[in-house]
């Protein structure tokens, strides 16, 4: 059972990896789109803390945090973003296709909501095998506008599949706010159309996220079917790329600062310090360990060889 310190380490690791990607992106060696998760770390860490390694998740274009929180290999992730042969996709997918099947991040897909029925299908395979594993499908607030989100919830509900749909609401789809895309109503009402249990929590409170996920996982393992989980959070940087874009005109600096003040890491850190679970020395040690790992991983990814050009036509068919 993951302790608060482990949760903090997981979130800090995600934050530092993403910030290093942002810092190095201008070098133009990571030549693919990157959708950073900075600000949304608590959802990834909290959800994964409630899962077993052999549970399988399907993620989206914004998959870095999910991949890392589930235990995905950091070197394989960075090598992929650098387009190298050692990348998890051998350089064929880039940042939006991260996966580490062994760690339980089965798949990430760049098409909005496209991974949701696949997550339900993974759950179907668990049900058919009589295993107690659960599947998780991540989606953003934009994903629920795609018809396939609804087809999937209905399919999962009618077949009582062991799958969790994790709705990460960060208020925007690219540069368009919720109000321009959906009527105002609680997201929890979406679940009623499928007679599906729903859990909702502050997406920046990792404990709340873990607890809500734990309840859903319990139901799924007990054969009680799917759950919709709704977590409100916020993307700090631009939709795609390393920069801040509060000046772009679609959202305000004030809104950003308001959410930044509710930083999921700062929140847990304060608690750890208050409880004496984290002192300066321990924090420094943690920071150094993570930084060392990240530096080593970047060094590996940058030095790693590119795939051989003549392998490009391989693996079209199994």
């Amino acid at each position: 059972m993951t302790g608060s310190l482990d949760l903090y380490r997981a979130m800090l690791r995600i934050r530092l990896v993403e910030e290093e990607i942002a810092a190095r992106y201008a070098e133009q060696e990571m030549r693919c789109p990157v959708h950073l998760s900075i600000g949304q770390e608590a959802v990834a860490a909290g959800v994964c803390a409630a899962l077993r390694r052999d549970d399988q998740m399907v993620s989206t274009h914004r998959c870095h945090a999910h991949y890392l929180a589930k235990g995905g290999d950091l070197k394989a992730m960075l090598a992929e973003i650098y387009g190298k042969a050692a990348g998890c996709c051998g350089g064929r997918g880039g940042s939006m296709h991260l996966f580490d099947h062994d760690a339980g991040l089965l798949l990430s897909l760049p098409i909005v909501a496209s991974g949701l029925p696949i997550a339900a299908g993974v759950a179907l395979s668990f049900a058919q095998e009589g295993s107690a594993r659960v599947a998780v499908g991540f989606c953003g607030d934009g994903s629920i506008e795609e018809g396939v989100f609804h087809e999937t919830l209905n399919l999962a509900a009618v077949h009582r599949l062991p799958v969790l749909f994790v709705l990460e609401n960060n208020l925007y789809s690219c540069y368009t706010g919720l109000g321009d895309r959906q009527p105002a109503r609680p997201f929890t009402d979406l679940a009623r159309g499928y007679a599906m249990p729903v859990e909702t929590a502050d997406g920046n409170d990792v404990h709340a996220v873990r607890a809500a996920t734990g309840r859903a996982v319990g139901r799924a393992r007990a054969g009680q079917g799917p759950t919709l989980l709704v977590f409100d959070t916020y993307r700090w940087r631009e939709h795609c790329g390393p920069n801040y874009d509060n000046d772009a005109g679609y959202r305000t600096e004030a809104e950003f600062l308001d959410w930044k003040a509710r930083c999921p890491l700062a929140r847990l850190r304060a608690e750890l310090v208050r409880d004496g679970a984290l002192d300066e020395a321990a924090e420094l040690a943690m920071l150094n360990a993570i930084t060392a790992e990240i530096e080593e991983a970047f060094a590996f990814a940058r030095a790693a060889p590119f795939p051989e050009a003549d392998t490009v036509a391989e693996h079209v068919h199994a």
Partner: protein
Amino acid sequence: MPEPRILTVAEALREATDLCMRRDPRVFVMGEGVADPKAIFGTTAGLAAAHGAARVMETPIAENGFTGLAIGAAMMGRRPLIVHQRVDFALLSLEQLFNNAAKLHYVSNGRHRVPLVVRMIVGRGWGQGPAHSQSLETLFAQVPGLKVVLPATAREAKGQLIAAIEDDNPVVMIEHRWVHYATGAVPEGHYTVPLDGPRVVREGGDVTIVATSYMLLEALRAAETLAQAGIAAEVIDLAVLRPFVADPIVESVRRTGRLLCVDTGFRRYGAGAEIVASVVEQALGALKAPPVRLGLPEHPTPSSRALLGGFYPTALSIIDAAATLVGAGPARVEGPRAALAAALATVPMDVPHPTFRGPF
């Protein structure tokens, strides 16, 4: 030796599915109506009773959703077979099929596999109309990562479906509704017909006729009549549109010097275009006359039979095209053609003709 077992293609497909489900517990069937009384034109009849509702899953009306469901299960090692009662409905599932099923093995650098079979049926006859009659085989055939097969005869249909279910890749099987009625001798038990390209169905030296699906049956009927007129047509079943293999066709055209392609779908941008282009690239010099393509014209399918007279290529239009191609005057085919025309005229054109049901 025992009487050969004559089955319809529909029965052959049912038998193939049942056999694979008995051999491999990972195989399951999913779709709208797979367990209902009509059982997808009989092709899934009895499977729910024999294997249970968990392995013959009725689905909501959600083509895109249950296609994704099948892909996820397939990635985890299950072997789903999904069915669409019309190709027209499958249009809703192309994002899953093209972006995911077709690409996951490639983008995962060979780690993921999607052993999925997607059956879809081409409607024809009884006033089906524009959105219940599309074939669209080159739409699927142009996507790398998929395999695309169009069964035409019973023995092959069974073997092709078994091969598809046992294949580790996503396979799209496009079944023409009228092919379901075609009969032929079908071996008992397990065998496969590999999904590896065209198959010479009838040998002849005067003209090479390449056809798929129901048009193969029309072509075979035409070849018989042409033979009566002393014209020897070699008939090739393209069968597998992807992976595309031209060699047997090129080889045949090198001998006949004449190529006639008959598409089940549209002529424009159809499989015939790829066949002609591939042949001229490799055997331009062998061509004694410009290749000819038949196929559906460039408009939707009207419902009224009064408008369908010239819509579908027929044995007669194939005969005429082949005769012209070999430079035979109308006089030469006139007799046998007239006899066939008379036989065909006994049945309305919006139902399948008994003499096209084989046995093949």
